[in-house]
């Protein structure tokens, strides 16, 4: 189980994240949604260990894998980018096929479009087994088809690996279908938390209401 107690992240006089208590059951899938600056990336980075919290206690599993918001292309072609993460060539090829990138396998990774690079970066993360999978806006550069490909790939990964998934997004599609739980963050605090259908139809706070209205679902 992942447990968060009195988590705070403060920059100077500004509190960008304040979560008194939050739990994620093993094997669960959660989507974090919220406007820019609501604290989604801050929370994910703290869970990934790449950012230190100002205060609070965290209980985390042993093996965490994290996909940053900004995708990076290593030198070399697509196959090499994935084998760098520890996968063999067959696994790399299988992942590229899942992400519908196999036809570009010999291309330089630096020549990919934004959405293609994002899917490649996800291939690297999915090449490894883990207990906690953290994805920071994995479809921000993807079109509708790309988003669906990512969603299906993550679902297939979770079917084979019993891991906990926490994913942040701006996409209404991922918010509704990306997980069993939807948390909306507002000004660094939890504005809504529950099953996606319940949160989207009966948001708990005014903040969550105004955010969901912006999606026009």
């Amino acid at each position, binding site marked *: 189980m992942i447990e968060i107690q009195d988590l705070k992240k403060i920059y100077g006089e500004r509190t960008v994240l304040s979560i008194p208590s939050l739990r994620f059951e093993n094997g669960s899938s959660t989507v974090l949604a919220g406007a820019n600056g609501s604290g989604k990336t801050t929370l994910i980075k703290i869970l*990934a*260990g*790449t950012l230190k919290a100002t205060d609070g206690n965290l209980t985390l599993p042993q*093996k*965490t*894998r*994290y*996909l*940053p918001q*900004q*995708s*990076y292309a*290593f*030198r*070399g*072609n697509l196959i090499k980018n994935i084998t*760098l*993460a*520890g996968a063999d060539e067959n696994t790399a090829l299988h992942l590229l096929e899942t992400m519908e990138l196999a036809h570009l396998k*010999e*291309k*330089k990774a*630096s*020549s990919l479009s934004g959405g293609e690079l994002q899917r490649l*970066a996800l291939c*690297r*993360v999915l090449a*490894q087994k*883990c207990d906690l999978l*953290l994805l920071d806006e994995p479809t921000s550069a993807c079109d509708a088809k790309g988003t669906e490909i990512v969603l299906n790939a993550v679902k297939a990964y979770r079917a084979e690996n019993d891991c906990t998934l926490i994913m942040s997004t701006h996409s209404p599609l991922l918010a509704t279908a990306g997980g069993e739980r939807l948390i909306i963050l507002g000004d660094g605090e939890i504005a809504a938390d529950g099953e996606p259908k319940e949160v989207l139809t009966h948001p708990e706070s005014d903040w969550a209401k105004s955010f969901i209205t912006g999606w026009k679902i």
Partner: protein
Amino acid sequence: MGLPPVVAGLFVYVLFTHYGPFGSLNLLFTVNVMVIAQVLLITPIVVALTSSFIEGSSKPVIETAEGLGFSKFKTAALCISEGRASLFSVVLTAFGRSIAEVGAVSIVGGNIQWKTRVMTTAIMLETNKGNFSFALALGIILLLIAFIVNAVASLAVKEPKHD
């Protein structure tokens, strides 16, 4: 980085002169002390440029590598591999700075023929003597060396085309 080369040369001279703390090593007016003076001049440049590179362009590499659970050693190796072009340019900047050095190497080396005379001090000497053609020839050779080194280094860091 803004250390005047002549002052660096003077500082090393004072250290290695007969009455200086390292005078007993008898290194003054040798190639060895010229190397020491160059190291004193070049190190701040290399450190500053490398630090700037690491702070800037290594961030996405480090973040991605940490996300994939790479060890610190593997992350460092990846940063060097990914940033080899930038690191090479740091090395080339240091190389360019050192082969162009005149002041510090003159002071500590003495510009002694067949011993501590280097191309830059020779150019200075021949120009002062009025042997412009000789000085010019040396300058052209020095330029060619610098050009070849730059060209070879650029080819070495270039990523092969795959498309």
